[in-house]
């Protein structure tokens, strides 16, 4: 008897909507997508291929595997830069969609693959393009992946440094041991005093990596506004974005007050301070 006779008749198990999907879904064993996701995956696919960086970063592949050789993520995850490049170069909308759910976040961005690639592909770069895409569209998986970054994002957007001493809390970084967190149990003084013992005045704060002047933070925020970063963040987390805008409004107010306070000194100065309208 023919083997084919044992295969289930495909249309029996499908709804009308499912039956309208291309059969490749079933045959490749991928999980089914909702019609909304299917539509979105098509949009993402088109946007991805229209990105001006796409043709610059993805050139072709000899499948030598030298990229994967040095890849740290390939040793611990079901991930390889060669596979990512293949998905970018030859994958369809569904393949791309699958990669955007989780795999893109395995990459360590160490650029070992780029240095190794004998074909000149920018693999780390194309992974970043995929990540940007998933952020811009606020994919659910991406929102979950980036959930732990609210605090460092806030710091980065409003001050311009990514880490602060008060982020390295013993309860969150217990695996780093007692010394790394400058715990008062070890030294018997508060974190503020530990920071005072650093011989650089701008580092003597626990709230950011170093003290950043208000003007500098405002310049940075302006860059974010004018280069689409703020809009991008809005797609990912509208509430966080509104909070950032509020914080910056306060910083702008602070700047305006300081300008009144230091009016006389500022008048004698030339350059960006005089012309900068925060």
């Amino acid at each position, binding site marked *: 008897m023919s083997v084919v006779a044992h295969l289930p008749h495909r249309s029996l198990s499908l709804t009308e909507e499912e039956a309208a999907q291309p059969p490749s879904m079933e045959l490749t064993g991928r999980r089914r997508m909702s019609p909304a996701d299917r539509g979105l995956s098509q949009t993402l696919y088109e946007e991805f291929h229209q990105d001006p960086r796409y043709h610059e970063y993805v050139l072709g592949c000899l*499948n030598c*595997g*030298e990229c994967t050789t040095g890849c740290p993520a390939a040793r611990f995850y079901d991930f390889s830069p*060669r596979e990512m490049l293949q998905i970018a170069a030859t994958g369809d909308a569904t393949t791309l969609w699958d990669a955007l759910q989780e795999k893109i976040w395995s990459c360590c961005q160490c650029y070992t693959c780029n240095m190794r*690639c*004998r074909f000149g592909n920018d693999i780390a770069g194309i992974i970043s393009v995929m990540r940007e895409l998933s952020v811009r569209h606020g994919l659910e998986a991406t929102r979950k992946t980036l959930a732990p970054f609210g605090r460092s994002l806030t710091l980065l957007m409003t001050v311009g440094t990514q880490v602060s001493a008060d982020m390295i809390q013993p309860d969150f970084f217990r695996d780093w041991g007692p010394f790394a967190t400058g715990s008062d149990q070890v030294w018997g003084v508060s974190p503020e005093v530990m920071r005072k013992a650093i011989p650089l005045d701008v580092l003597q704060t626990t709230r950011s990596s170093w003290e950043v002047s208000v003007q500098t933070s405002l310049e940075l925020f302006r860059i974010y506004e004018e280069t689409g970063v703020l809009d991008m963040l809005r797609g990912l987390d509208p509430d966080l974005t509104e909070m950032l805008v509020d914080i910056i409004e306060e910083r702008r107010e602070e700047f305006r007050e300081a300008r009144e306070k230091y009016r006389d000194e500022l008048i004698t100065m030339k350059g960006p301070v005089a012309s900068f309208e925060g």
Partner: protein
Amino acid sequence: MNPVLVVGGGPAGLSAAAELASLGAEALLVEKEGYLGGNPKRWHYSLLAPDLKPAEEVLGDLLGKVEGNPRVEVRLGTSVTAVDPAPPGFRVTLQGGKGPEGREVSAVILATGFDHFDSRRKFEYGYGRYPDVLDFKELEGMIHDDKVLRPSDGKPPKRIAWVLCVGSRDLQVGNPWCCRMGCVVSIKQAVEIRQKHPEMEAFVYYMDIRTYGLWEDLYWKSMQQYGVKFIRGRIGQITLAEGGKRLLATGEDTLLSRPTEVPFDMVVLASGMEPGQGTKRMAELFHLPVGPEGFITPKISDINPVDSGVPGLYLAGAATGPKAIPDSVTEGMGAALRAYQHARR
């Protein structure tokens, strides 16, 4: 009739000189090194692929037609340092042991060949620092002398890996072209070693195997008869393992899609072909166009690969691109015929 100048004493140059002599013309064969035979001689090539005939035998046939031939004047340790047109031929200056010497020649054949890629430039492999990382031209000499031993401790290796395309098909070292020879020569070496030393294991790391035409037979036999193992994927780095006693070759097995890390006693690099120093110098001296790769570009490469486009100036062998010995010998003959026709006119 003035002699025809043949620059380069490798297979293409020897073939050209021999052919000129057989046509009844005089050949002036100039070679910058102190011996004839080119790269095969220099690196003591062992058996030549694909017929597994000893290199000495093949070269011997060619040398026999040149050495002692009254129509061939051989000048070793000599370079061409200047050239002026003297229609229908050229006036050239030769620089040998005794200072410059002017000569009138009726035509010129450039058979200046290739250099093996210097594998130190692919520094992920530690060639030049780790003694047991060899270039395959060095292994040729070892096989030839039947002394396949690890340079570090003089012991026979148990496991040997070949890495193909070193300095070929690689933008990172500036050489995007294929050397045409790396696959077949590496496979031939693995076969030779497995024939003589079946206790040694042979692994070939490749991205594609280009044993084109009838050479495919050797590739098949290497697996069927000699148990050579092929792993699809390139080695990305070689480091020391086991306290420096062995080499650790890291790559991806691209068919299994997993990184691999395997200790070897010896790793052999199939270094590619680059335009030879002589090729670069002659291209400058004769104002010949070179391609982005640095090889000389023939006037019409498809139907007349030996014509440079300059009347009386012909090309043969690896000066115009990576080439196997039979192709170089054929081009030597073609160039000789064209030079002869020019000189007779």
